[in-house]
């Protein structure tokens, strides 16, 4: 499991609905103009399905970037 793979999975999850071409490890997804509470739930579900890690809403909220979110996942794995 690598960071690039994780970024790719997030892009894949939202690519049909949004322009996700600019997403990179340093992106703070919570700051994306399209980010909503539903997106947070989708990310939590994605991480649970792909990595068998259950993130809390607080962990997603407090992550400063996709990279930092990925670090949390690695810690909980």
């Amino acid at each position, binding site marked *: 499991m690598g960071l690039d793979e994780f970024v790719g999975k997030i892009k894949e999850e939202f690519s*049909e*609905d*949004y322009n996700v071409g600019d997403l990179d490890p340093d992106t703070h997804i919570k700051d994306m*103009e*399209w980010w*909503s*509470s*539903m*997106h*947070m*739930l*989708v990310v*939590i*579900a994605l991480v*649970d*399905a792909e990595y068998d890690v*259950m993130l*809390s*809403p607080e962990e997603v*909220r407090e992550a400063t970037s996709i990279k930092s979110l990925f670090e949390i996942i690695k810690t909980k794995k």
Partner: protein
Amino acid sequence: MKAYIKHISEFYPEKSYTNDDFYKEFPEVEAQKEILSRVGVSNRYVVDEKTTSSDIAVQAAEKMFEEHDVNPKDIEFVIFCSGEFDYITPTSSAIIQNSLGLSNNVGAIDLVSSCTGFVQSLSIAKGMIEGCGLKNVLLLCVSTITKEFHKKDFNSKYLFGDAATATLVGSREEFGIGNFVFGTDGSRSDYIIIRDGGGRNPIDENSFTEEINEYGNVTCKANFYMNGAGVFLFGMKTVPKLIENILEKNKAAFDEIDYFVFHQANHLLLEILRKKIKIPANKFIIHLENTGNTVAATIPIALNSILKNGVAKSGDTILFAAFGTGLTWGGTVVRL
């Protein structure tokens, strides 16, 4: 004698509230249209201000009497399950007994419950038939939850709808309703709550102060509040174990279940649960697109969808799993 689910009928209020209506009311949320579509709701029905939960419960019961040729004189007990009631006292079930013209020898109780309400009230109906010698219990599960929303609460207005279901629990020789599993975690009772207006916090001038969350959704203490993320995670964590426990308590194998009918919380969560539990899509019922989440009524509505179209038939084994307000959860296995 054994209890079993004999008939189900549904009733919906006249007024529908489509996604087009929603985006006209909340144009600021239109940018989230695609992600919101994952909730899986395109229409809901909503009661008007004057209509109460007992009103639509009576309509559902009358529809059942007519659709299934049930004689109201055969009803021996009424269970009214809802989160909304006509009065603090008396019970809505007493009002319903009178409205339906049922005999004075009928028993009637209210059960204050929401998403887990159908499973909880089904267990009571089973107990009345198998333990108290009754033959026909009328179970009314009703949502008029939309009356409790703040007018600016777009999250709740998108997800929920109103409906009433009438389920006749009858008696027969063969197995019909299995053993129940229940759970409660009152430490999270504030996840789904109307904080003011009950005995703990009477309505005062602060009850209507608008509270805006980080995503711009609005409610107040006098209106419905849901910690959506918290409830979502609760469902993800609790339901897989609940299914294991239901199967174990009923000594049933996973493959013996013909259909899994869960509380229809939302499409996204249901699909996550289906994949986590590895339920084949053709055995898993998702039925909320035209109704929204109708709280205590979702399971009978979803079950009735496969009864009405002939997919489910006599002898099929169905697993019910419900979860929500309280927080509570529960489930059982039934044979049609």
